[in-house]
């Protein structure tokens, strides 16, 4: 019961772990390369959440200094994750470009069929 209460109290971390495991599972289990990349993106996104969620302070405002406010949210995680999103987009774009080239070279994007075609030659 206590564990459940802790888990509910930290529900944002529970979601993070859930997304992380789903992403990793897709990457490992799926043979289709586009699906693998989708899984990889979900995996990366979970880490964005890990950074962003704790940056919000309940009752805090935007970090613009004003004598009327005492509590501010932390803007730094957002900035970090903007960078990480750019890295993630670049990775996804490069991954998809590779999939296009693999499809041109092999005529398929299923991993097991590709291994079969390599074995034939």
């Amino acid at each position, binding site marked *: 019961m206590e564990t459940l209460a802790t888990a509910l109290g930290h529900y944002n971390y529970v979601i993070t772990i859930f997304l992380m495991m789903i992403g990793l599972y897709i990457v490992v289990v799926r043979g289709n390369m586009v699906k693998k990349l989708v899984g990889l993106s979900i995996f990366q996104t979970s880490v964005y959440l890990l950074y962003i969620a*704790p940056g919000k302070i309940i009752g805090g405002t935007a970090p613009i200094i004003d004598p009327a406010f005492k509590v501010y949210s932390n803007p730094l995680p957002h900035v970090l994750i903007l960078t990480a999103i750019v890295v993630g987009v670049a990775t996804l774009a490069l991954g998809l470009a590779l999939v296009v*080239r693999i499809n041109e070279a092999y005529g398929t994007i299923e991993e097991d069929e590709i291994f079969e075609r390599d074995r034939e030659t």
Partner: protein
Amino acid sequence: MSAVWPHLPILQVIIPLFGALLAGFARRSGAAFAITLVVSWLMPLCAGAMLWQVLASGPISYHLGSWPPPWGIEYRVDVLNAFVLMLVSTIGAVIMPFARRSVAFEIEEGQRAWFYCMYLLCLTGLLGVTITGDAFNAFVFLEISSLSTYVLIALGRDRRALLAAFQYLIMGTIGATLYVAGVGLLYLVTGSLNMVDIAARLGPAWADNSRAIIAALAFVTVGVSLKLALFPLHAWLPNAYAYAPSWATAFLSATATKVAIYLLVRFLFSIFGVAIDFRALPVAAIVVALSLAAMFVASLIAVFQSNLSRMLAYSSVAQIGYITLGIGFVNLAGLTGGLVHIVNHALMKAALFLAVGAIFFRVRTVRLSELAGIGRKMPITMAAFTVAGFGLVGTPGTSGFISKWYLALGALEKGWWVVVFLIVASSLIALVYVGRVLELAWLREPSDAIKDANDPPLSMLLPLVLLAAATIYFGLDTEWTAGIASMAAKDLLGGLR
């Protein structure tokens, strides 16, 4: 000169970054090569000046945009990363002349300028990871180097290069994401991203957050281990090295995994080791166990390869095992052995892969069955290969012996006689796979497939011979390798709790 001097740390990263842009815009391969050559030759000057400065007057701290740490990004150069910077930039400079003919032979004209552009971006990333004192900045540079590496591999001559690049992309991204999750946990616990600052705040935070810190340690260690191909996380490496363009393989095998090893050492010794007593955790024991497994399993797999590049790739996994073994000992001799093997292995493996590139340049194949008698046709190339091969085995008189000597001393200091025996035994396996190639190359009659082969032109031969000579030189005079490595190891161990 005096205006440039204080800005060396940022120049080390900015010059290759802008060089990459110029090379990309140049479009013509000749112009791109010229830009790349100039940049590659500037880098060791920059790194050498910093190494000299660090040895003379202690660590350099450079504040980006004059924002003081921990708020701004700090570039921090101490003996350890000046040593690695020097290695990466020197390897790039020495093997660059080899690239022109090798790249012209293996890559289409339209893609050559992009190849040089990607190489310079990769160099930017590797130097950036090494020089930065900011954990998140290290992630960004890690991904700059990794993304450009995937492209370099995909430019390989075989369609399997595409598949290798894709598999590396998946594994590398998982590794980087795990690393950044670990850094995130550290940031949650300490509120800082500056490595020195994290180390200072982690100790007081340990009492309340020990679980989060152990999770962060696990995330970072596994993430970086994927990048450095620690057994059994090495699955991406053999195909990537076997199908990438020859010159790219030589560069990557000598530098990319080494920089990841540096990052692991930095986190274990300068961040976690300063704050918590990680000797009480099983990290070092796990690293030692995996390293021993790498030394044996990967060496044994190498013995049974029919393709020369793949054999050397598996040998790389085994040799990385020696480096991490020394790190896992957590004592002066062991750590010195690990760090010195970073340099020694980089020099030998670059020489070996350049020799493979030269062979491919002449006979268009690297399958062992077709290379019988190659030593008689390409004597200088294979002589360099032989010297570097003996370095891999660890024969006295080569630099490989120095590394293994320190590793054995480290194991003895621990009282681990069995490990000393295992280091010697795994070297014997290396003797088998190197000896197999040497027997084939020197003692057989040349086959028809290679009857027209001869040594490559001077621009390719010179880097190869230089690296092979370095393998012997650093086996005799160890002041610049083991001397600096032991200074770095002393610094790292002195900071441990």
